[in-house]
C-alpha cells in the first residue's frame, strides 16, 4: 500500500526492555486522517508502540515521523499528538475545566483563547454542564469524554487512544464507540486506537493492524482482515465465536480431511495452489444448516452436541467424525442436543492455511 502523504511513518522501529525485545523491526505508515486500530492479545506490544509514537518511551532503534517531521527524539508535547489513556489519567484535584486548560496554560496561550478552545471542545463533547465538576463526581463515560477533550483542546494532528473504553461497561462502550467514530468524522485527523475488543476494531477502523509478539501480522481494512486473513493467527483471532478449523491436506484442488474430501471449487487461492498438510477454516456464521445447507457445495451430516441460545442468535456445536464445529443459527432455531443436523458451507467462504508456515494458501 502506498501512501503519498503519510501522517505517521514508522521505520524499523525496535524497542527492548533490557534483554526483552518488545518491538521487532516494526514498520507502519498511516495516512492523513486515517483511523488505525492496533489489535492484538495482551502483551503483544500495542501500548508500547503507542508510547513510542507519543515519545513516552525512548526507542532502541528506528525512526518515527509525524506529519513528515522526524520526531524520534522530540519531546511528547512537541510532537503534535494528543493521547487518551485507559485509566483516563485525569488530574483528580482539578475541575474538568482546569483539566482541559492546564496544558494550554503551560503552553502560554492567552486567556481568552484558552477559554475559546475549552468551550469549543466542551461543546463538541457535550460536557458543558460538567466543566465545574471534579473528575470524582463524573461517571466513567463522562470521564472518558473529558480525557478525550484534553487531547482535543490541543489542536493536534494525531490522536492516540490506549484502550480508552475498556474500563467501561458494555452499554456505555457501545455509545462512546459511536461518539468516537463521529468525532473522527468531524475532526478528520489521524487516529491510532489500541484495543482488545474486536467489535471496536471492526467498527471504528479504516485499517486494522493485527499485532503479535511485537510485529504487525496484517495491516488492512476490517473487511479484508475478516474476509481474507493473511495467516492462521489472524484468522483465529478475528471473529466471535472463532473460526472452526479442520486439519487435513490439500492436493489438486481437493482438501482431504477425516470428515471427507472437500472440493475447493471457487476458493480464491492466494498463490499457486500447492500441495501438503493444511488447515481449513470456516466461520460459524458461514455454515448453513437445515434446508439452506442443501444448497451448499459442501455438506456434512452432523449431530448436535451443545446448544447456546443467545436470543438474537443460537450457537450450536455439532460433531462429525470426532470433529466439533460451531454453527451460528437464527435466534428462533429449535435444536436439541443429540439431534441430527445437516450443515453445509461454500468453499469460497472457507480459508486455507499451510500447516507449517501458517500462511494463507
Amino acid at each position, binding site marked *: 500500500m502506498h501512501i503519498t502523504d503519510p501522517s505517521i511513518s514508522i521505520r524499523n522501529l525496535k524497542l527492548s526492555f533490557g534483554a526483552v525485545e518488545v518491538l521487532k523491526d516494526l514498520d507502519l505508515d498511516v495516512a492523513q486522517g486515517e483511523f488505525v486500530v492496533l489489535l492484538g492479545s495482551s502483551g503483544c506490544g500495542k501500548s508500547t508502540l503507542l508510547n513510542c509514537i507519543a515519545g513516552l518511551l525512548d526507542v532502541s532503534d528506528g525512526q518515527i515521523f509525524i506529519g513528515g517531521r522526524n520526531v524520534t*527524539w522530540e519531546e511528547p508535547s512537541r510532537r503534535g499528538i494528543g493521547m487518551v489513556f485507559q485509566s483516563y489519567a485525569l488530574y483528580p484535584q482539578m475541575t474538568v475545566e482546569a483539566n482541559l486548560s492546564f496544558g494550554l496554560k503551560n503552553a502560554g496561550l492567552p486567556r481568552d483563547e484558552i477559554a475559546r478552545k475549552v468551550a469549543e471542545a466542551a461543546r463538541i463533547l457535550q460536557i458543558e454542564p460538567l466543566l465545574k465538576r471534579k473528575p470524582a463526581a463524573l461517571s466513567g463515560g463522562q470521564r472518558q469524554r473529558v480525557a478525550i477533550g484534553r487531547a482535543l483542546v490541543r489542536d493536534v494532528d494525531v490522536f492516540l487512544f490506549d484502550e480508552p473504553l475498556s474500563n467501561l461497561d458494555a452499554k456505555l462502550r457501545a455509545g462512546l464507540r459511536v461518539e468516537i467514530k463521529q468525532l473522527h468524522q468531524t475532526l478528520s485527523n489521524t487516529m491510532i486506537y489500541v484495543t482488545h475488543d474486536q467489535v471496536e476494531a471492526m467498527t471504528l477502523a479504516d485499517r486494522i493492524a493485527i499485532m503479535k509478539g511485537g510485529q504487525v501480522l496484517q495491516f488492512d481494512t476490517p473487511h479484508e482482515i475478516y474476509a481474507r486473513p493473511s495467516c492462521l493467527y489472524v484468522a483465529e483471532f478475528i471473529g466471535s465465536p472463532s473460526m472452526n478449523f479442520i486439519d487435513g491436506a490439500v492436493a489438486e484442488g481437493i482438501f482431504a480431511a477425516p470428515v471427507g474430501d472437500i472440493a475447493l471449487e471457487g476458493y480464491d487461492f492466494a498463490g499457486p495452489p500447492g500441495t501438503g498438510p493444511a488447515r481449513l477454516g470456516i466461520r460459524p456464521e458461514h455454515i448453513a444448516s437445515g434446508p439452506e445447507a442443501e444448497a451448499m457445495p459442501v455438506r456434512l451430516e452432523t449431530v448436535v452436541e451443545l446448544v447456546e441460545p443467545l436470543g438474537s442468535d443460537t450457537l450450536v456445536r455439532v460433531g462429525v467424525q470426532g470433529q466439533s464445529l460451531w454453527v451460528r443459527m437464527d435466534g428462533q432455531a429449535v435444536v436439541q442436543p443429540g439431534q441430527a443436523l445437516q450443515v453445509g458451507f461454500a468453499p469460497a467462504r472457507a480459508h486455507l492455511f499451510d500447516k507449517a508456515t501458517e500462511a494463507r494458501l
Partner: protein
Amino acid sequence: MSEPASLSATAAGADAVAPALSGPRGPRPRKRLSRANIIVYGTLIVVSLYYLLPLYVMVVTSLKGMPEIRLGNIFAPPMEITFEPWVKAWSEACTGLNCDGLSRGFWNSVRITVPSVVLSIAIASVNGYALANWRFKGADVFFTILIFGAFIPYQVMLYPIVILLREMGLYGTLGGLVIVHSIFGMPILTLLFRNYFTSLPEELFKAARVDGAGFWGIYFRIMLPMSLPIFVVAMILQVTGIWNDFLFGVVYTKPDIYPMTVQLNNIVNSVQGVKEYNVNMAATLLTGLVPLVIYFVSGKLFVRGIAAGAVKG
C-alpha cells in the same frame, strides 16, 4: 465479493517506498552528565554527606585517644587509631560501683527486646486483622482512641502504668516491661497492620470463610504468609524503639534487668572530670549497632512494607 463502505480514502496501491524521510534515528543519545543529572546526583551526594557526617564524627571520635580529642578538630581523622574506647565502653566503664561497661546491659536488652517485639507485633497484627476484616461495632472508636494514644507523651502515663502493673502483680518484672512496650507500640503498629490487611483482596478472606476457616485459621494460614513486608516494617520499628528505650527500661525494671541504654545513660552522664567523648561515642555506637545492622540488612523490605502498609489511597 462486495466492498464494504470504504472510508480509507488515501489507501491505494501495494507496498512501495515512502518518500524519503530523513533525520536522526535510533536511541536518543544520552548525555551522561546532563544538567538534570548533575542536579539530582549533586543534591543526593550533598544530602548524603550531611546524613553521614554525624556517623563519621562518632566513628572517628571513638577511635581517638583523649589527648587527641582535646586538641580540637572533631572532623579530623584519628592520627593514631585506638580501640581502647571501645573496650572501655564495652567492658570497663564505671557507673557507681559497677565497672563492667555496656556488656552487662547487652543481654538484658536482648532479653527485653525479643519478647517485647514478638508480643507487640503479635497483638498489633491481630488487632489490625480484626479491624480490617472483622469490623465489629465500636471498632472504629477503639481504633481512634488507640491513635490518640500514639500522641500521649510517655511521661504522662508513667504513674498510671505503675499503678496498673502493681495491680497486675507485674511491676518490676520482665513481663511487666514487655507489656508496657506492647501497649505503647500498639497504636502505630495497629495502624500499619490495619492499612496493610485492608489492602489485601477481601475476596481471599471471603474464600477462606467459605472454606470453613475461623478467625485464627484465616489469620495464621492465609493472612500471615502474605504479610512478610509489613512484619518486617513492624519488626524494624519495634526493635529500634524498644532497643533504644531508656525511660521504661529504667522505671519498670530493676538493676539486674536494666537494658543497655541505662548503662549508656550512666556512662554518658557519669562525668569523671572531663567527658570522655571517645568512650561515649563508642558506647553510643555499640548501643546503636543492633538496630543499625537490622536497618542495613532489611532496608529494601522496609520500603516495600511501608509502601504496602502505611500508604493506602
